[in-house]
């Protein structure tokens, strides 16, 4: 029904996606609304070098799969972040490397970072817990890390995460609950790093 309505001046994401059938160029509106937030999220997940490329790919996938979009969802951000999260699964090693780079840097100030991480290096001094957090995140299974970071970094609600990941809300809750428990377990006590034992940890999953 929505597809047949005339285009309004202020369109929801669902309106824009539906309108792409007649005018694919309208996809740019969706892109402009969400590209910045998606790149910011992906930069945090896998670093600046791959983030933008991955965001471009996510939007291309979204365009191709737009017939699967649930038109009852006015805001497409959860759907788009779900697509980006699926693409991230092929970059787990990059994510692991980046998280561990934080930990190493903070432990060893002499360690040389890639140019892209300079700003981060400066901030870490002011944030003593960052390396421990990075290590704990690196130690989580990827499905639990996805839920934890979609919730805290992309500000998605439980229902939005269920939409994004195409899983029931109960699964979102149990993954978040397990992820949080494991995160707390992995936070090293008194600055003792568990980096070595994590090195072989979840990467293979």
């Amino acid at each position, binding site marked *: 029904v929505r597809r047949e309505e005339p285009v309004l001046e202020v369109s929801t994401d669902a309106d824009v996606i539906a309108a792409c059938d007649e005018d694919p160029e309208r996809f*740019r509106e969706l892109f402009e609304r969400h590209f*910045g937030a998606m790149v910011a999220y992906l930069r*945090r997940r896998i670093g600046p070098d791959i983030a933008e490329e991955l965001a471009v790919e996510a939007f291309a996938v979204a365009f191709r799969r737009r017939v*699967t979009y649930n038109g009852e969802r006015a805001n497409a951000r959860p759907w788009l972040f779900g697509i980006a999260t699926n693409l991230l699964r092929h970059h787990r090693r990059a994510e692991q490397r980046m998280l561990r780079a934080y930990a190493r840097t903070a432990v060893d100030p002499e360690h040389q970072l890639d140019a892209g991480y300079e700003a981060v290096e400066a901030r870490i001094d002011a944030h003593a817990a960052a390396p421990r957090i990075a290590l704990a995140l690196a130690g989580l299974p990827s499905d639990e890390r996805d839920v934890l970071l979609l919730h805290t970094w992309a500000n998605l609600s439980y229902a939005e995460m269920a939409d994004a990941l195409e899983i*029931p809300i109960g699964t979102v*809750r149990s993954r978040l609950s397990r992820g949080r428990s494991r995160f707390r377990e992995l936070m090293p006590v008194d600055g003792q790093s568990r980096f070595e034992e994590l090195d072989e940890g979840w990467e293979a999953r």
Partner: protein
Amino acid sequence: MGGEMNDLEMVRAFRAELGTEPGPDRLEPAWLAVRERIAFGPDVSVGRRRRYRRRRVSLALAAAALIAALVALPALLPSGTPGSADRAGAAVSFSQDDGFIVAVIEDPNADSEALREAFAQHGLDITLQLVPASPSAVGTFVYFSLDETAQQGPAIETLASDDPACTTAGGGSCQIGLRVPVDFQGHADIALGRPADPGEKYSTANDGFAAGEALHCSGLYGMAVQTALPVLSERGVMAIWRSTDQSIDTVDGIDPTTIAGQYVTDAIPAAPGEVYIWVTPDQPSPLPPSDYLQRRDEGC
């Protein structure tokens, strides 16, 4: 980091360490890259739309048949069906439709090997599992994962019923199969929720308070454990008590008499008639109104 900061706040604060939005100058080159990747023209979308409409008409009958099978839970196959090819063929029916292989699941109890064989016979590397799911997740796809090759190719579409009578317990349209592009390459791992057998643990579960679930409209959220016990007993639900307090929580459940004064804060279905129920020492605030809650509690 203050000692009072909880884990979620800690992770949220860490976000600021890790980068920000790109500058506005990045928008145009990125859009051009998207545009190039899509290479869209009017033909692409018009074609898709036509197929979509045709599918909705032609498969309504099959949808109704499958959901009837899912709900009634019969084993559709005679026991001891000989030969793996026959077994595989009976699990899924295949047809072709405008560049797609249309796969409709015929046997809601088919094992994953029979389903894998059935897809393999059509040259498709697809692992489809029918996993025990809590009532409102039955008939919904609960897991969908594509390898890199599959992600780069044309998309697999899920096949939803267009029959208004064919709905999941949560009110969504029921899923009955897949539409796989004939040139599909790569591997897909997919799971569809099926009803659990008595005593069988759910592989995946919805919100315990959702429509169709054991605690829908129970009003349990925020209730003291001692008040909740008779409500559960009346509904014939066995609770496995869990706590948000990690020091007393155990996966096998806590003795409810030790937490009688604590309050229910969450529920996740565990198996038919069994629900994990989380408690917290302080009475939780009422949940803020949301579209999700309104849908979940409709008719309560």
